[in-house]
């Protein structure tokens, strides 16, 4: 009986699929365009739809190309830092750290212990809010609107802290070459502890909402699967690559800023589908909270700027006290920071993956060429292969899970 039913099913499904030979006239061309709730404003895909399935999709980018690289060539190094804020504007401090670390390595500048701990702490805090926004908006695109507020409320409290520390909520511009722009405010540790608990409450609320929610599971499990080889070939790094099961994290493979002394582990997915990419981010938030708690214990009072004269401004009494301080102050301000001539490529583990800066310096005040290696470009390059064959509703779920941030995508 079942064979008959089975064979009928084949004939039935073929009977159901009406067009046997492929004909272009049956396709509907739709612009899943730049101004669309799910494309975060600046991504566009021209889709050829056969019914609901996307037969062919042409992604397009460049709608937020603001000329970051050309602007960096006409500004001195210190003034390039605010431009790096606007690359991945969900986690601005990570871009600052990426840029300043590259320049400091070029200048071979020794940065004090407290600055390293604060940088690690701030990077992990920014990784949390980046993941919160990514998962929050991804679930909103899937229709789970309450998660938007579960994700955004703890994020607002993190923003309160960031605003107290560096004066701006989103574009913090907090890191300087050789140190920090200002020190932490007193009472910072207790507030961070309170916020971490709030983040954990938000994350657990979100997980309770979607854990065995059939709609969520149906719409994300083995949707937009990318195998490990394809992920590597697309140059994927960060949570999306780890969701495909490849263990690659710069904080472990090429540790910087003492990451090898912190104990945290890498979160790995197995199937490389949208479900894994969302859950990898949930668990990475837990790992980041572990790191922040350890970093808080290591915070010791100390200088927040390196003593290296080529980079740091002398203290005020030196500037007004003697002529050497005044000359040093004058030279740093007027001639800026002069890294030696040469090229460098330095990478850090940002929220979306490996954020690398290739800086070419001609010894002058302005960088000769700055190229930002943005993980979002690689994530979006794989988008065509991910959506073709799937339904248009899956394309929205996949786009949310690869977290394409337009600022660093189009630079």
């Amino acid at each position, binding site marked *: 009986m079942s064979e008959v039913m089975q064979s009928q099913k084949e004939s039935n499904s073929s009977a*159901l*699929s*009406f067009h046997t030979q492929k004909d272009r*006239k*049956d396709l509907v061309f739709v612009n899943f365009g730049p*101004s669309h709730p799910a494309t975060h404003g600046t991504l566009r895909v021209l889709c050829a739809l056969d*019914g609901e399935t996307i037969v062919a999709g042409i992604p397009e980018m460049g709608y937020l190309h603001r000329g970051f690289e050309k602007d960096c060539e006409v500004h001195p190094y210190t003034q390039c830092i605010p431009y790096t804020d606007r690359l991945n504007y969900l986690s601005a401090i990570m871009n600052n750290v990426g840029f300043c670390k590259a320049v400091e390595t070029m200048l071979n500048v020794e940065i004090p212990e407290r600055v390293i701990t604060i940088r690690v702490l701030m990077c992990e805090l920014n990784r949390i809010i980046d993941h919160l926004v990514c998962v929050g908006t991804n679930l909103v695109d899937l229709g789970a609107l309450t998660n938007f507020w579960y994700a955004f409320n703890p994020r607002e409290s993190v923003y309160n802290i960031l605003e107290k520390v560096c004066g701006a909520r989103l574009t913090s511009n907090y890191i300087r070459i050789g140190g920090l722009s200002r020190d932490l405010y007193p009472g910072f540790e207790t507030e961070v502890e309170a916020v971490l608990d709030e983040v954990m409450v938000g994350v657990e609320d979100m997980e309770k909402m979607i854990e065995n929610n059939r709609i969520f599971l149906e719409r994300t499990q083995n949707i937009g699967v990318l195998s490990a080889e394809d992920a590597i070939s697309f140059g994927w790094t960060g949570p999306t690559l780890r969701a495909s099961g490849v263990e690659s994290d710069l904080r472990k493979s090429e540790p910087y800023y003492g990451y090898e002394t912190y104990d945290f582990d890498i979160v790995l997915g197995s199937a490389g589908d949208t479900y894994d990419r969302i859950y990898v981010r949930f668990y990475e938030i837990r790992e980041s909270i572990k790191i922040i708690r350890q970093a808080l214990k290591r915070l010791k009072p100390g200088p927040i700027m390196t003593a290296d004269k080529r980079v740091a401004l002398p203290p005020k009494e030196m500037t007004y006290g003697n002529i050497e301080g005044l000359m040093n102050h004058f030279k740093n301000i007027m001639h800026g920071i002069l890294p030696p001539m040469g090229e460098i490529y330095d990478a850090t583990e940002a929220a979306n993956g490996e954020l690398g800066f290739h800086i070419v310096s001609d010894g002058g005040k302005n960088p000769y060429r700055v190229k930002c290696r943005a993980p979002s470009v690689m994530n979006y390059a794989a988008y065509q292969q991910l959506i073709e064959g799937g339904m248009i509703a899956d394309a929205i779920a996949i786009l949310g899970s690869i977290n394409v941030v337009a600022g660093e995508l189009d630079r």
Partner: protein
Amino acid sequence: MDSELLQRVFPLFIALALALLIPIVFIILSRFMGPRTNDPVKLSAYECGIQSKGQVGDARHRFNVKFYLVAMFFLIFDVEVLFLFPWAVWFQNDILYGFVSMLGFLGILFFGWYYLLKRGAFEWE
């Protein structure tokens, strides 16, 4: 129509009149009060901001038959639920008779549903 029956049904007529009146009033009001500029760009299809010069498809196409079938299935089972409402209101008066009659009605539709399930009409591929 004796007055007693009219008495009971009259609120229904009021509701019906209101239901007709309100949309018509709004349409007339908006025609006079709302400012209106009908230039061709404004009336063009919304393609997420891309100027669609006709080559982006309109929806008049031969579609896969499964969409039509799903609409039919929904119609059948939605009407079935519709009949449950008056039955649920009246159900308290005579429980045994009500239950048996609805059992017959639901049973017939259950066979239809089971046939569709086994026929694989609900798989969406």
